[in-house]
């Protein structure tokens, strides 16, 4: 355990130490000493910006992401289950998916201007929707026919079949989509704030950059990085628990 921790933490510690010492005497405007950045951290992220920038950003991200998850899984299950519907939707989905999500921002801005929280949530939700939706469709499609038939011959109810067979069977694919959507969500959270000039984590970083408050800008970048890491860690935790049966299955298959 200590060996593993040593191996895992070794390189980051070395890299941070390198950054610290190489930048120590730095007079470059863009690359301030790491010590200055660290010193700026607690001064920059006091209770007020955390309450008015960081938390609202995370709340918008969460709301948009959850909407995308609900809509994506529901629509994906429907599209995946009916051949005709799928054939009808496929080219349209293919096209909508191919539009880079940030391009939605100017379009949404046309409708409502780009100031309120709603437009940002809509942006995040629309961007996260496609990977979840398409992966759900694929997951539902790749379900074992025998499983479906078995559920039918056991006369499982529609809802039970949906919950126990369809959703459960496609959950590894859904999780893969949800993971992709998470990083797109973080990107859109930041970009949506770069666009509308108001508060939020992304907006704060740009404010620092425009005001040439370089160490503060760096603290913002680092905070965004930490947020990304924390979210993917949280995701892995949830995935680990909900897909425990799947890992067990794979393990058993390998041992045979």
């Amino acid at each position: 355990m200590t060996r593993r921790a040593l191996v895992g933490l070794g390189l980051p510690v070395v890299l941070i130490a390198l950054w610290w010492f190489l930048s120590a005497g730095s007079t470059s405007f863009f690359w301030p000493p790491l010590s200055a950045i660290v010193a700026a951290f607690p001064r920059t992220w006091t209770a007020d910006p955390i309450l008015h920038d960081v938390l609202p950003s995370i709340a918008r991200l969460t709301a948009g992401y959850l909407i995308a998850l609900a809509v994506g899984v529901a629509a994906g299950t429907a599209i995946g289950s009916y051949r005709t519907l799928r054939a009808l939707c496929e080219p349209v989905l293919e096209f909508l998916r191919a539009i880079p999500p940030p391009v939605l921002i100017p379009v949404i801005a046309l409708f409502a201007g780009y100031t309120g929280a709603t437009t940002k949530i809509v942006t995040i939700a629309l961007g996260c929707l496609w990977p979840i939706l398409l992966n759900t469709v694929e997951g539902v499609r790749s379900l074992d026919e025998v499983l479906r038939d078995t559920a039918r011959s056991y006369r499982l109810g529609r809802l039970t079949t949906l919950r126990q067979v369809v959703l459960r069977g496609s959950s590894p694919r859904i999780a893969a989509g949800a993971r992709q959507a998470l990083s797109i969500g973080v990107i859109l959270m930041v970009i949506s704030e770069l666009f509308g000039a108001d508060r939020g984590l992304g907006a704060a970083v740009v404010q620092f950059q425009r005001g040439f408050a370089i160490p503060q800008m760096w603290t913002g970048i680092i905070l965004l990085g930490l947020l990304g890491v924390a979210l993917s860690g949280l995701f892995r935790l949830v995935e680990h628990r909900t897909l425990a049966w799947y890992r067990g299955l794979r393990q058993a298959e390998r041992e045979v």
Partner: protein
Amino acid sequence: MTSVALRGRLAHPALGVFGLALLVTVVEALPRLGLVDSRFLPPATDMIRELGDQLLLPEFWVAAGQTVSGWAVGLAIAMAAGIVVGVVIGGVPFLRAVTASTIEFLRPIPSVALIPLVVLIHGSRPESALVLVVYAAFWQVLVQVLYGVADVDPVVRDTARSYRFSRWTTVRTVVWPTAMPYVVTGFRLAASVALILEITAELIIGVPGLGRSIGVAQSSGAVTQTYALVVVVGLLGVAVNASARFVERRALRWHTSVRRDL
């Protein structure tokens, strides 16, 4: 997308066309019937007409060329760097163990967090977009290559060693064929991520290209043009996805996941 999905799509091309026609009809009908203000959503025919007008403008083609070349250069650099770094790190167990946590840390840093930094250093020149594109696409490739190298059959690896294959021969004949499908998957993912970042950089930072054209059109109130350009970017994305999938099938023609005669 698997070959099964492909067959499913080809089974009902007429339905797919009908679906597209339905979308166009809805977009046409909503503003015409007054359900949506045409200042927000112009009728589909107006968008198509605007699209036709755009295709005649030299500025449009210049912007499209800037976007595509920025995308291609960034993708090529990310592919080369990702493959080299991936094969080197993946081939040496010690390096793999030591770098795992760092890669896990750097990968989720949203590349857009770097936007303020690149704006400061490069301004709205193409270099800004290039940095973002390479950073974002690099991780997609690297992680796939690492998976691929880890997938090499230990027996094959040991066989190569006992035949005293040189390091280079081992990479070429043992590691590369195993890693190839993963590399191609990395390419497909990186191709679309690179396009997203290229367009984003143009839209947000003002790097010349289609993204900037969209931003300009929107802020100057040219609604129809905004939509027409969004459609163009969408079609560009479809083209990127389709060609990446084509490359995938060509490059892996020998592989069991693509071959049908097995």
